[in-house]
């Protein structure tokens, strides 16, 4: 009997579908992309960021089981469009691409990402690392992630950066066990992405948590 919580591929796809449904409702730009042979797919989001701005201005931690704080409405997480800056130099704009894939070997989701300037020049691992908020740098170096490495995207075949999946269960198991204890429904993808995303500049508005509907079944 396994102690760790894994998710099957079908559950992964179902959680992604729910996630994307909410994304569409709030104008976040997550999409589902099918592989060319249509046998599987992944979630994808593109957003643009001005270089040298802190990638995250509000390092928010998102924990399940907490009731919504009354102040949460006041937090405006950075949206995709940079509404505050006037006409940034094109050379300073960075395109971030985030892909959520399923790893059948580890039976968990994996976050792939890459970044490039508008002229196509990719950011190096060093550049990416510089964009990671200080508080996450320490945590990243301590684990449970095995740092960020460059790997081949299993569906596109191109180089991406990856947060290694082998320790995912270490932080997901307590989250899922706790949510079962308090009898709250959980979207695995929402929980997981809210934990790993901020490390690499990807933030989730809190409304994703509230979106987990009453009639959603528990994770298998």
């Amino acid at each position, binding site marked *: 009997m396994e102690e760790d919580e894994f998710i099957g591929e079908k559950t992964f796809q179902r959680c992604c579908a729910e996630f994307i449904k909410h994304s569409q409702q709030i104008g976040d730009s997550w999409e589902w992309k099918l592989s*060319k042979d249509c046998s599987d797919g992944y979630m994808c989001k593109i957003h643009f960021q001005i270089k040298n701005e802190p990638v995250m201005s509000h390092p928010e931690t998102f924990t399940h089981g907490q009731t919504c704080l009354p102040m949460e409405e006041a937090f405006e997480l950075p949206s995709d469009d940079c509404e505050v800056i006037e006409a940034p130099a094109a050379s300073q704009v960075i395109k971030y691409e985030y892909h959520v894939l399923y790893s059948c*070997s580890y039976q968990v989701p994996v976050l792939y990402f890459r970044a490039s300037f508008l002229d196509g020049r*990719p950011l190096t691992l060093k550049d990416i690392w510089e964009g990671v908020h200080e508080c996450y740098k320490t945590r990243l170096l301590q684990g449970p992630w095995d740092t960020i490495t460059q790997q081949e995207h*299993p*569906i596109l075949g191109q180089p991406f950066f990856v947060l*290694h999946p082998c320790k995912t269960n270490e932080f997901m198991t307590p989250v899922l066990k706790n949510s079962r204890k308090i009898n709250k429904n959980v979207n695995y993808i929402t929980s997981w992405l809210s934990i790993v995303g901020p490390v690499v500049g990807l933030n989730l508005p809190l409304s994703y948590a509230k979106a987990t509907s009453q009639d959603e079944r528990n994770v298998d």
Partner: protein
Amino acid sequence: MIVVEKFGHLVTGTQAYIHLLLPRVSYLTLVTDKVKKHFQKVMRQEDISEIWFEYEGTPLKWHYPIGLLFDLLASSSALPWNITVHFKSFPEKDLLHCPSKDAIEAHFMSCMKEADALKHKSQVINEMQKKDHKQLWMGLQNDRFDQFWAINRKLMEYPAEENGFRYIPFRIYQTTTERPFIQKLFRPVAADGQLHTLGDLLKEVCPSAVAPEDGEKKNQVMIHGIEPMLETPLQWLSEHLSYPDNFLHISIIPQPTD
């Protein structure tokens, strides 16, 4: 296998070629120190940045075993395998960077860990000490078969009550698809206890690769330069024909027309 590496840019004449015998089971950037040194002698320092390899216009992925690259891209051509070496214009969109030997080791160990996740839920590899992991890597790097297998044999065992691994680590490669490889969960033993064969695997995960019963054979199914019989049990192939990273790297290539 002999490789002739012709330098594509600034060097001409006899200095432009170097012949090497490359191990099928290793990786390009691990075995080409001689190449780097050779060309560094005849080129200006400022002309040299990260080395990369190319065959007939296709950048070669250093993180794939050499034998896999050859089977997939060049097995139907005559030897020697003419690879072009580059020191400029690294193709960022196509190739992973290989900043050091440590990067190759990290990649190799990552593949081994993934293979064991499939075979044993990572139990065997996680129980090993760091020095055992190091011994696997050193065995590969220094071409020490016994050193490597002293540790690797533990990764080839399975519980007495089972008939094989939990799932078989495999990847199927074809040049005709955008997708770099097919990898799925596949058990070596069927529910009725029968051992699954290579043919069973292909029928399940890559049906287009296998010709219909009465049809003409369209493709070669190649591992390590040979075509195992489709009736071969997959468990046996996994134990005996895996690469050092414990994966079966299988190439599907068009049947050559002689």
